Every structure is written in structure tokens, then in C-alpha cells.
């Protein structure tokens, strides 16, 4: 089929096409190299001994690799505790966002009620409110509630930043066939049952993608935890990293610093590597259209 519809091309044009392809690959490979290099350099440095870190010439791969930077990082700073905080905060933020986004997405997609368009607009409009505009009032509120240095103080004010995910889920629920919903209705399923037993099982892939994106977002959050988590032990990895750079004494600890950066990088990289196909296809089916 495909070859029949394509207009016949001369050998010359095909050759040009082939050379063009090679050129494209070369350009893309170069950009890929620049993209991946900082990761490579981080991992490489994290396995170097101090004298190799500070050589005058360029040492791409450690000659005498060591893993000691990793335990060292844990000794200088409470990196294990930071890792646990990052993990707990990311998991709770993800669960919380799902718990408030899925029911709302379902209501906005499939239920009729007065004010639906208005409330939908109210939620979507949060996307044009820059996060930084509410940090001062939220900081005051969180400190009044006694939530400074707690996970709740980071997680709960972050939950409403979920309009994009709610929108993705709604778009996915809209693509479900109307027959599926009608069949459920005919069987006498209540609205809640419909959501729980028919809609949620059918949008699992989208829920997975939203979970992953929200986990990554929470794992990497910076400004808000920087303000809320002042206690040394309560910090997350993304925020705690700062101690390696701001402390003059530890400014020379490039090995352990890169080891800590690697520890902060590996979980999100692994999650993404496993889920990338799913993420791309969800973006396609949701047809994000501004």
C-alpha cells in the first residue's frame, strides 16, 4: 500500500534522502551526546578517588575506580534520611493528587451538574498562577499549623497543583466509549460504582502515567521544600544537595557530592526508562490542545 501511494522517486532523490538521514542521525547523536554528558561525568566522578578528581588533565574514566564516595556521602550528611524523605513525600503527594484528581476528572468528563464549566475553569485557571505567588501566604499558614519541618507541610499545599494531571485524566475518560458508561447505567450502577468499577479500570494506563509524572515532580520539587524543611534531618535530596555546595568546608567534596547527585538521579531515571513508551502514548491519546 504505502509504496503504491508514494510517488515514484528517482534514484538521485533516494540517494539524497539516504544522505539526509545520515546527516539527521549525526546531528541528533551530537545533541544526545551533549545531553547525556553531564550524567556520564557525574557517575564517572562519583567513582573516582580524590587524587583523580583533582588531576590537571582530563580523566574521562576513573583509572582506579572506587565506590567509597557513596558510603562517604552517607557519613558526611544524612543522605539516607534525605532519600527516605524524598521517597515518602513523593509517594504521599502522588497518592493525594490521584485521590483528588480522579473523581474530579470523572465528574467534569461524564456528569452533568450546574456550574460544571465554571468549576472546571476555576481548576484549570490555576495553571496560569505561578507557584511563587503564593509561597508567602502558604508559608505563614503552614507555620501557623505547626507543619514546618514535616512531610505534611510539603505535601498538602502541593496537592492542588494538579490541574494538568486532572486535565490529562479527563481527556482520557472522554475517550472511553459512551456505550461502556451507558451499559453501567443500565445495570443500575450508582455514580460512585460507575467510577470505581468501570471508569478507573479502563483508564489505568493514564493513571499510571499521571502517577509517574507526579512522583517525579514531587521527588524533584525544590523551592517549596527549601522553605518548609529547615531542619537538617528533615530535608529532601533535592534540597539537601545544597549543603555540598554552600558549605565552604565541603566544597572540595566533589566525589561524595557526585555520589549523592547520582543517588538522587537513579530512581527517577529508572522509573522513566521503564515507563517512557506509556508516557508518550498517553500524551498522544490525550491530544493536549492548549
Amino acid at each position: 500500500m504505502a509504496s503504491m501511494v508514494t510517488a515514484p522517486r528517482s534514484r538521485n532523490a533516494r540517494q539524497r534522502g539516504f544522505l539526509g538521514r545520515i546527516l539527521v542521525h549525526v546531528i541528533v547523536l551530537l545533541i544526545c551526546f551533549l545531553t547525556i554528558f553531564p550524567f556520564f561525568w557525574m557517575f564517572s566522578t562519583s567513582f573516582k578517588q580524590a587524587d583523580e578528581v583533582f588531576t590537571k588533565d582530563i580523566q574521562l574514566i576513573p583509572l582506579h575506580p572506587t565506590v567509597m564516595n557513596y558510603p562517604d556521602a552517607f557519613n558526611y550528611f544524612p543522605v539516607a534520611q534525605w532519600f527516605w524523605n524524598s521517597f515518602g513525600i513523593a509517594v504521599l503527594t502522588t497518592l493525594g493528587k490521584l485521590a483528588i484528581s480522579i473523581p474530579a476528572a470523572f465528574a467534569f468528563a461524564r456528569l452533568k451538574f450546574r456550574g460544571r464549566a465554571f468549576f472546571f475553569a476555576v481548576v484549570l485557571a490555576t495553571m496560569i498562577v505561578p507557584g511563587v505567588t503564593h509561597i508567602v501566604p502558604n508559608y505563614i499558614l503552614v507555620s501557623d499549623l505547626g507543619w514546618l519541618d514535616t512531610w505534611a507541610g510539603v505535601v498538602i499545599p502541593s496537592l492542588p497543583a494538579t490541574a494538568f494531571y486532572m486535565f490529562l485524566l479527563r481527556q482520557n475518560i472522554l475517550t472511553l466509549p459512551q456505550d461502556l458508561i451507558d451499559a453501567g447505567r443500565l445495570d443500575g450502577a450508582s455514580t460512585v460504582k460507575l467510577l470505581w468499577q468501570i471508569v478507573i479500570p479502563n483508564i489505568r494506563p493514564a493513571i499510571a502515567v499521571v502517577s509517574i509524572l507526579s512522583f517525579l515532580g514531587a521527588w524533584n520539587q525544590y523551592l517549596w521544600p527549601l522553605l518548609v524543611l529547615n531542619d537538617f534531618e528533615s530535608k529532601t535530596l533535592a534540597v539537601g544537595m545544597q549543603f555540598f555546595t554552600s558549605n565552604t568546608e565541603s566544597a572540595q567534596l566533589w566525589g561524595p557530592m557526585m555520589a549523592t547527585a547520582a543517588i538522587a538521579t537513579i530512581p527517577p531515571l529508572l522509573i522513566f526508562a521503564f515507563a517512557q513508551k506509556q508516557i508518550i502514548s498517553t500524551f498522544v491519546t490525550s491530544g493536549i490542545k492548549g
Partner: protein
Amino acid sequence: MASIRTTTKGATSSGDVARRRFTWYKIKEGVIPYLLIAPLLILVAVFVYWPLIYSTYLSFFDWNFVRPDKNFVGWDNYTQLLDDPRFLRSLHGTWIYLVTLIPIQVFLPLGLAMLLWPIRRAKSQGAYRVILFSPTVVAWSVGAVMWLWIFNPLQGLLNKVIAEFGVERVNWLSDRNTAIWTVIIVATWKTLGFNLLLYLAALEAVPHDYVEAASLDGASNWQIMRTIRFPLITPTFFFVLVTTVISVNDDVFGAINVLTEGGPFESTTNIIYYLYEQGFKYFQIGDASAVATIIFVATVFLTWLQFRFIEGHVHYG
């Protein structure tokens, strides 16, 4: 008589029950949509919309977080900002980030998506996507730490590389001319993948019939990209543009804080970083709130401008 009455009564009451059950069911089903959206709406109200109002209120007061009383100062916080050279320098930084990073974040991934599209069936495509997207999934602060080690003036790789070519050491992070470019480079590296993915997804969603029809008419690949594929992905283009304008200065905060802490001489400070310093370093809550209000108004204005003047060129559906 009696028996009839009871029957009638019985019939009425059972009808009542049915009707009552029906009304109860209707009320319940009528309330459920609101219950489903309530948690999200309450959180949005408490942590997004109320703070906007409260922050605007605070912008008219002089307060330092701890003092029990707030002094009303009218528009003083706003007028003082215009006299603060640090604020003016932060506006300059904000401007530089906008004019460099908006084109970089909107057009660079678009160009790359158009490059990747013709080779989408190549075996290496999956690997390209994973690699190009990978910086998106790490924290801004952690990504900035990786680059900090490259830009470090004494042991950093970049200076070692240029030394190989006989170029003298540059203090990338503390030189007024180069510092802001380190932030821009990190931001470019960090954001390329996400918008690229959005564009690729949009290209994939372009209906095949249009493309086939055009190629039957003898259109070249480039013509098809320019006249069919691009117009059909303009909704995504517009989405990327609007979200980039909103987030670009917010995004670079982590990179600024790790790489330069706003220096040297506020050359890398933007309005977001200024707000952070006023609020949480100097505890000038009134100043910080005034800046927050300005940021909000400016963002809404810029978004409105784009909808007013650019959205008309977007092809939906």
C-alpha cells in the same frame, strides 16, 4: 370501607416510599458530582486562590513575619521597589531569561521534533527519546549540581577542555558576562526533552489521510511538514508557548540558587529569586507580597496577550 381505606392507605404509603426513595436517589445523585470535585476545589481555594488575595492584602503592609502588628503603608512597598537597584537588576535578569529561553524552549524542541520525525521508524529512535528526555526527570537542583562541577573554575571540566586549546581559565560562575549563560545552558539542557515529547506526540496524532493526499499530489517531505503537519500541531505549539512564558522564570530558580545564588552583582537574579530573597532572607513580607502581586498581574497579562494575538492563528481540530 375499612379494608378499602387500608388498601388505599397502603398503596399511598408504598407509593410515597417509592417516591421518597426516588427523590432521595435524585438528591444523592445530584449532590455526588459536587462531592467528587469538592476535595480538589477546597484545596485549590485554600492553597492557590486565598493566598493570592491574602498576598495582595499583605503587599500594603510593612511586616517581618515575627512582629505581632502589621503597619499599613499603602502603595509604599510598590513605589519603594522602583527605587531598589536590586529589584531593577532583577527585572533585567527576568527579561534576559524571557528573551533567550522562550525561543530556546519553544523552537529548539520543535526543530528537533521535525528532525526526528522522518527517522521515527529507525531502531535508535527509542534510545534518542529516552536520552533527550532524561534531564527532564532529574531535579533542577541536582542537574545544576552536575553542571556546577563542569563550570567549576578550578577543577571543572570546561576550563580543562579550553586549556587544551590554549584558552585561559574563565570564571564562568562569577563573571558578570558569563554567569547568566550558565543558568541558560542548564535550563536549555533541562527543558528540551519535555516539549520535544509534546511535539512528537502531536505529530503522531496528525491524521494520515491528509499526509497521503498531499504526497499523492507530489508534495515533498518538507512541504508536507510546513503546510500540513505544522498547522495541525499549532494547538500544541500554542500550549508550549503559553506554558513556557508562565514557567520560564519560575523554573530557573533552582539553577540560580545552586549555580550563582543570584550573583555576581545580581546579574543572574530574576524576579522570582528577588521575591525569595526579600521574603525569606530579609523577611520583608510586604515587599515580597508586592512582587508576588506584580508577577501575578504580569503573568495574566502575558497570557491574555498570547490568547488575544496568537490564538487566532491556531488550527483546532
